[in-house]
């Protein structure tokens, strides 16, 4: 209150004297739309979802308060845990592999292709890798389901054409292979994002470091390991955090490609939550799954941000 009183006095005097108002107050107004949108779109639905997670509700009528019953059921739900295991596979496909491959590709494009073939070729290749990120996932999913179709899919046709008929598979219909097929599609979808971020990061690395290393006789791999990697570590943290979150909440690709099948082999928590919520109309249980997923994603985000901040402080 003291501050307010003092401030009122200052404001009054400043106004009388014709001084401009303090900028902090004016800036606060600019935050208002964002705060309101955040409240309406994130906080309120999140709180409502958390509340619904403690109830037994079919989506209409009055929800019955059941406390932790949904969470207890979740603990023993083998389908949920299976979907969560699939999520870990998705983290490999959407975060680990694209980050590792993206790093090597970005360094190769920046350090090798750029120098030998020019920036235009580099830009075209970068755009090609990024293209799947621009495509709506529904479109990409439908196209991939054609490619991977067992009888008339182009992948099997290609294998047959090159004499590898024995490699033909029911890519999305065989429970032993379907998850890996979806993972393959997700690597293709996701690769462009880390590549572009890493290439942007490489722009800020001092070229003299590379020149000095080259003069010292360091080969491409040594330069990559000792210069590129340490220099763009902040970007790596950002990409890993971002992609891990994307992997944990992946939904569209599973919905379009397999609908969680065959026999639940590609089910993931977000799709599991969706079917529980809308198909089984177990809204309370679906909300509990969403809440658990949100908490896990939040925790991972905080860990990622913390690691990133620590790295920035260290450097």
């Amino acid at each position: 209150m003291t501050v307010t009183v003092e401030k009122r006095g200052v404001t009054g005097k400043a106004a009388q004297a014709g001084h401009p108002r303090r900028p902090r107050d004016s800036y606060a107004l600019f935050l208002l739309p964002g705060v309101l949108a955040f409240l309406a779109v994130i906080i309120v639905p999140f709180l409502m979802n958390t509340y619904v997670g403690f109830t037994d509700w079919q989506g209409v009528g009055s929800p019955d308060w059941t406390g932790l019953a949904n969470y207890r059921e979740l603990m023993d739900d083998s389908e949920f845990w299976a979907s969560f295991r699939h999520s870990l596979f998705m983290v490999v496909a959407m975060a680990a592999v694209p980050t590792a491959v993206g790093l090597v590709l970005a360094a190769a494009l920046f350090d090798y292709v750029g120098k030998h073939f020019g920036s235009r070729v580099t830009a075209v290749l970068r755009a090609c890798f990024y293209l799947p990120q621009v495509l709506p996932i529904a479109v990409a999913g439908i196209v991939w389901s054609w490619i991977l179709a067992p009888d008339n899919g182009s992948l099997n046709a290609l294998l047959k054409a090159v004499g590898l008929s024995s490699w033909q598979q029911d890519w999305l219909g065989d429970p032993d292979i379907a998850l890996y097929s979806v993972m393959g599609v997700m690597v293709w979808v996701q690769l462009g994002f880390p590549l572009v971020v890493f290439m942007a990061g490489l722009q800020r690395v001092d070229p003299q470091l590379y020149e000095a290393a080259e003069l010292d006789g360091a080969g491409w791999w040594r330069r990559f390991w000792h210069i590129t990697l340490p220099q763009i570590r902040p970007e790596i943290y950002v990409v890993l955090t971002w992609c891990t979150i994307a992997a944990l909440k992946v939904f569209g690709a599973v919905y379009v490609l397999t609908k969680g099948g065959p026999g639940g082999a590609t089910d993931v928590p977000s799709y599991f939550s969706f079917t529980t919520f809308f198909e089984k109309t177990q809204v309370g249980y679906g909300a509990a799954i969403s809440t658990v997923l949100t908490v896990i994603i939040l925790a991972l985000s905080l860990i990622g941000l913390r690691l990133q901040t620590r790295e920035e402080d260290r450097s």
Partner: protein
Amino acid sequence: MLTARRRVVATAVLAAGALLLTSCGDSDSGSSGDGKTLKLWHYEAPNSAMGQAWNEAVKEFKATHPGVKVEFEEKGFEQIQKTAPMVLNSSDAPDVMEYNKGNATAGLLSKQGLLTDLTQEATARGWDKKLSASVRTTSMYDTNGVMGSGKWYGVPNYAEYTMVFYNKDLFKKYGIAEPKTFDELTAAMDKFVQNKVTPLANAGAEYPAQQYLYQLALSKADRAWVDSYELYKGKTDFHDAAWTYAAETYADWVKKGYISKTSSSTKAEDAGVSFLQGKAPVFFSGSWWYGRFVDEAKFDWGTFLWPDSNMTLGSGGNLWVVPKGAKNKELAYDFIDITMSKKIQNLLGNKGGVPVAADASAITDPRSKALIDNFNTLSQRDGLAFYPDWPVPGFYDVLVSQTQKLITDSEKPDGYLDALQDAYDKGAPKQ
């Protein structure tokens, strides 16, 4: 006088309140409730038999209700299916809407008090007389939302049933006669397999696979069995003779090559297209394909009911429901009445649909006549056995994922039936 900070906070609170009120509540989108606007939602494609019939019904409605505006919104099946409870709970509810029939859909909404009781209108306008008993089953729901008895909450204007579609040209090519019995059907399939043709179009990722399976069970079932399973009038044991026969026969058919081992990820559309392309000589599915096959098949084809079975999948079509919050209910009843009129029903029949109240002599198209004759045969022997996913919310997904396991041989029939029993017992109302 407010400080700058307080002004910001106060504005924020007021704006947040306004925003929340706007997002949660009363955003009437124009229905006046004054008898001048009929707000109508349905999800039939404009070129389908039903789509064409409902368009004609709208014209008829406008002619008989001068000055009344029809606000039609074309929705998707999934769109209405997923959002209906929320929409019907709001002030944006339409006056009349097409909705899926069954316990987990219309039954659930009626139980929650979101639908208008149409019993009085059904009697007064004679809808109850026009619909046969098996078609009427999906119109009525008891206080627990279980179909078959209680009050009227919906009105179906058409019916649907499953049949065997077969490619006459392919049967001729391999010297196979049209099967009249189940043994002849399996003999025909053996012959196709010997000629390296997979006889049955199947789709493991969607409804066709489970419909084959349910049909196999129905061939060993009777009305009491169906009533136990669908209407909970008794205990359903998935290890009984009918279900066991169905699961074992289905798994056997995959082994024998009647059903492709690679059909676990295919969708209904793929199955229909493989029949249309002349790849699969037989497709067992519903009358909803009929019009499309008439339009697109480039070969001679025919249909027959599943041999040696009194029962098959089918029911009254989707329902017209009147939301509890509808503003112009009288107009909604008038519209439903028009869709039940001879004129619209005859049009529906001639466009390849299965009308429920048509004038038999007015159906002139021979294929449509055959379709309706088959339905009448089924109806007369009380042979409509509904669909396997109806009894329990979410059972469709269970059936899809478990039947996929039978196709890929990652589950044996016994385990398959255990999984169905488990899901059914969890979801069915406790007796």
